[in-house]
């Protein structure tokens, strides 16, 4: 790890100003990804501003939503009674992620900004357009079992690793962001507009400007009549990133899907909202046929590579299973 300066933040405005002013500065929250990246030489900030003293922690309920402080830990959010009661998809996505030790340290804001687990991104001896724009993509010619099949480009096939983000994208959550220009006022960005596909610029993963700080996440509560769940498929039973995952919320009325939400994880370069599949679900009977049609729609446009071609069908089956489970319908 390269030597760096470390400061503890004393206020939001000061922290935002300090990082904004210094292109080589970065925030430090739980550190569960950041410190690894620094040890591996993937990131080498000159200055780390530790924002854990800022508070920004806890869950408050508001009209039809919960507001989650960005520094709330994954464990804290998973244990929140409102989340457990109204947002099982969020709770499941948290508890199926990482390990208890990591969930005790990792923050919600940090979770949404975590970097890809792509081993070519994380090994500085490899070409990577995300880490070093223009250097190429080591994954394309390498091992891509864990890589994306949706939202990819010829420059990057790295998978977005977060489970929580998949659930939040499905729920139309938004992040509250503080920038140097807005001073005391938070800017709200719907998560659906927050993440960027790699395209020609894989280094740009979201719409935050350097120095902008996520202060909170707003998650709309599902209304009565909705049910939700998160299914994560992986090789081992715990502590592994998804090969495929699905966040599902359904409003069922007399066996008919009035409305449904679906997002996919483990298969895409960003948390993948499957709106085409939602169109299939809307107004359709909650049957295996409907779910299979939705799954086909969700994977439309998938662009697999030899090492991850199986993920197209695996993701479809994951979608079908998640929809069936949430709907209480046998496959």
């Amino acid at each position, binding site marked *: 790890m390269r030597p760096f300066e470390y400061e503890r933040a004393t206020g939001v405005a000061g922290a935002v100003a300090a990082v904004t002013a210094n292109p080589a500065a970065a925030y430090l929250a739980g550190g569960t990804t950041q410190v690894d990246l620094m040890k591996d030489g993937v990131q080498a900030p000159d200055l780390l501003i530790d924002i854990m003293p800022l508070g920004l922690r806890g869950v408050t309920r508001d009209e039809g939503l919960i507001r989650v402080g960005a520094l709330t830990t994954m464990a804290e959010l998973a244990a929140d009674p409102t989340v457990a009661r109204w947002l099982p998809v969020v709770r499941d996505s948290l508890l199926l992620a990482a390990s208890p030790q990591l969930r005790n340290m990792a923050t919600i804001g940090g979770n949404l900004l975590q970097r890809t*687990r792509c081993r070519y991104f994380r090994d500085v001896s490899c070409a990577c357009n995300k880490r070093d724009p223009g250097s190429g993509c080591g994954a394309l010619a*390498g*091992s891509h079992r864990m890589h994306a099949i949706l939202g990819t480009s010829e420059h990057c096939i790295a998978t977005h690793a977060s489970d929580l983000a998949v659930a939040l994208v499905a729920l139309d959550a938004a992040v509250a962001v503080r920038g140097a220009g807005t001073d005391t006022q938070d800017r709200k960005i719907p998560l659906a507009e927050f993440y960027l596909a790699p395209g020609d610029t894989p280094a740009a993963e979201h719409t935050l400007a350097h120095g902008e700080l996520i202060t909170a996440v707003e998650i709309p509560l599902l209304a009565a009549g909705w049910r939700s769940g998160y299914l994560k498929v992986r090789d081992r039973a*715990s502590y592994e990133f998804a090969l495929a995952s699905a966040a599902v919320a359904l409003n069922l009325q007399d066996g008919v899907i009035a409305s449904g939400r679906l997002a996919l994880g483990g298969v895409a370069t960003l948390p993948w909202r499957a709106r085409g599949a939602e169109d299939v679900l809307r107004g359709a009977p909650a049957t295996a046929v409907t779910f299979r049609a939705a799954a086909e729609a969700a994977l439309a446009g998938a662009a697999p590579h030899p090492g991850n071609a199986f993920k197209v069908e695996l993701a479809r089956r*994951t979608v079908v299973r998640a929809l069936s489970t949430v709907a209480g319908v046998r496959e």
Partner: protein
Amino acid sequence: MTTTHAARTVGAGLDRVDGPLKVAGAAPYPSDFSFAGMAHAVLVQATVAAGRIRHIGAAAARAAPGVLAVITHENAPRLERAPGGLTIGPPPPLQDDRVLHHGQHVAVVVAETAEQAAAAARLIDVGYESAVPLLELDDPRAQRVENATGRDVVRGDAAAALAAAPVTIDVTYTTATQTNNPLGLFSTVARWDGDALTVHDSTQGPAFVRTALAVAFGVPESGVRVLAPFVGGAFGAGLRVWQHVLLAALAARVVGRPVKLVLTRAQMFTSVGYRPRTVQRVRLGATGAGELVAIDHEGLEPTALEDEFAESLTRSTTVLYECRNVTARTRQVRLNVACPTWMRGPGEAPGVFALECALDELACRLGIDPVDLRLRNYADVHPQTGKAWTTKALRACYEQGAERFGWSRRTPRPRSMRDGPMLVGYGMASAHYGYVQVPCQARASIDREGIAHVRSAATDIGPGTYTAMTQVAAQALGLPPASVRFGLGDTEMPRAPLQGGSGLTAALGSAVHAACGRLTAAFLDVVADDPGSPLRGCQVEDVTASGGGIWITAQPARGETYPAILTRHGLAELTADGQSARRRDLDGEPAIFGAKFAEVHVDPELGLVRVTRVVAAVDGGRILNEKTATSQITGGTVGGIGMALLEETVSDPGTGRLANATFGDYLVAVNADVPDIDVIFVGEPDPMTPIGVKGIGEIAIVGVAPAIANAVFHATGRRIRSLPITIEQLL
């Protein structure tokens, strides 16, 4: 939960004597040792798999804060390679500009702190003249090595028997590269005093490290001391003397200060060996009644370019079943890969996977129950030599394992058993390991407090050697275990062999037993003419050690304690040495046996396999400690689950770079993957060793993967012949 049912044990369930130290964090592992003035070394590794180093830009690193030295092939002192090949390890590092594998050590940075060394190591710029590496087993440029272990067998005429056999199986299996991955990062702390060298090291054989270091640096072996009182696991990674060990000592020599070197997790994948991947073709010929008439087993695996590593994949194939016509061969192919090592159940774990899956395929073809098929081909004598087994309770393994598992509930047809939506499969496999007992020495003393001090330069990489040897000594000397202090992991102690090949417990236990016996004799010598001793004139065969002293067997009230003898004779302590070696007077074949039974649940849509039960029945001779032995079998079973379903070290095509050298990406089984494991010990003490022990380290993993693979077939009807069995193979 693990349950156990032991046959013959010396000390059922004694808690680990080193347990309190370990759980309190007070057990000193190699990286815990420090010396005054110590510097820290960090390694720089090659990022190409073949070619030459064109230049090393080290100026920035040398100028970085705290840096004491940057050592490369351009300035490294010459190091000699110790003779003895296998255990000594790969060629000495930094001796020329050639790159033989991705991850080869090309420089070592020494600095005041480990952080400074790591930061400076990132500043080193190495330019390569790359060559096209040899990475594939079928590369025509690659050198092939035939029968490197000398264990190939040709018995009868397998080809003719296959051609004539009414039923034949001809299948090819592959197993993945696996990395040993002990939890403890391998570490070396080295300190020179003139030509004397003290090294703390993560090793399974301190004596071999001492020899290699003495030869490498051209210093007298008597001046080299290697210590390893605690090692954070090894699974075979500590069987060889690796380059980083030499580099730590080299760095200490160059900077004139003690040096500590701790490998990173990523470096653990390229620096301390791994289990090579295998390709194995198995052909079986049988009668319609399931009598094996031919076995042809051909194994292929990679090895490194300038290394002697080799293992036989086919040892069990030649001895597990009665069969007249057997051809068993293992070949290595030399590639631009890091040096492999023996990983738990070396050769046997992958080899028995292929053999036992082929047997399952044959059973299925013939419509014979898999256990029954094995019993029909039971080898009552050693099939190669025709000699009797010293002991063999494999039949009891099958019978008791099947009984405990509930094998009779299995319905033979694949996909015929379900639990709700889940497909259920039952599978089984035989296990065999031919253990090695090599000479070993130990020393035992008793002091005036009645405390025994017993020691040998062995290691305890986790199986419970401290505990088992404490029990052996306590029993031999008639002391409570709390009065025995067992010491190991120091080359100043009597010489011990490697802790490998399931051989140490038998070798060391026998040496400890011998030392304790001679110590008893030494006490009798002291009182031989002592009119004040009730033991005057007694011979060893007349007495029993118990109750903290020696008593006449025929007159149990007559005798005295060790301290009484020492005190009366003005002695501080008495000491005796003992040694052990393989018995040459017993004309029998020793071997370890087992039978493994596994139940899996398979999600038919998602291709997810979960192991739900395992029964492991093991004939390990006498079991010294039921609790630690059960832990051994449990741990090996967990390793077998990983081998079957999860573990694969992946390298990039064309470059040889490892693509998953982290604990997040290389999947070992976690708690949630591990079901109830039921361990049964059967059999009798093995007369081949004085204490009746066979050794169980390897048999713990052998047979687990094929039992699981056979269960997956039974559940799904899909025969997956490539490990690990993953979701994509079952979709």
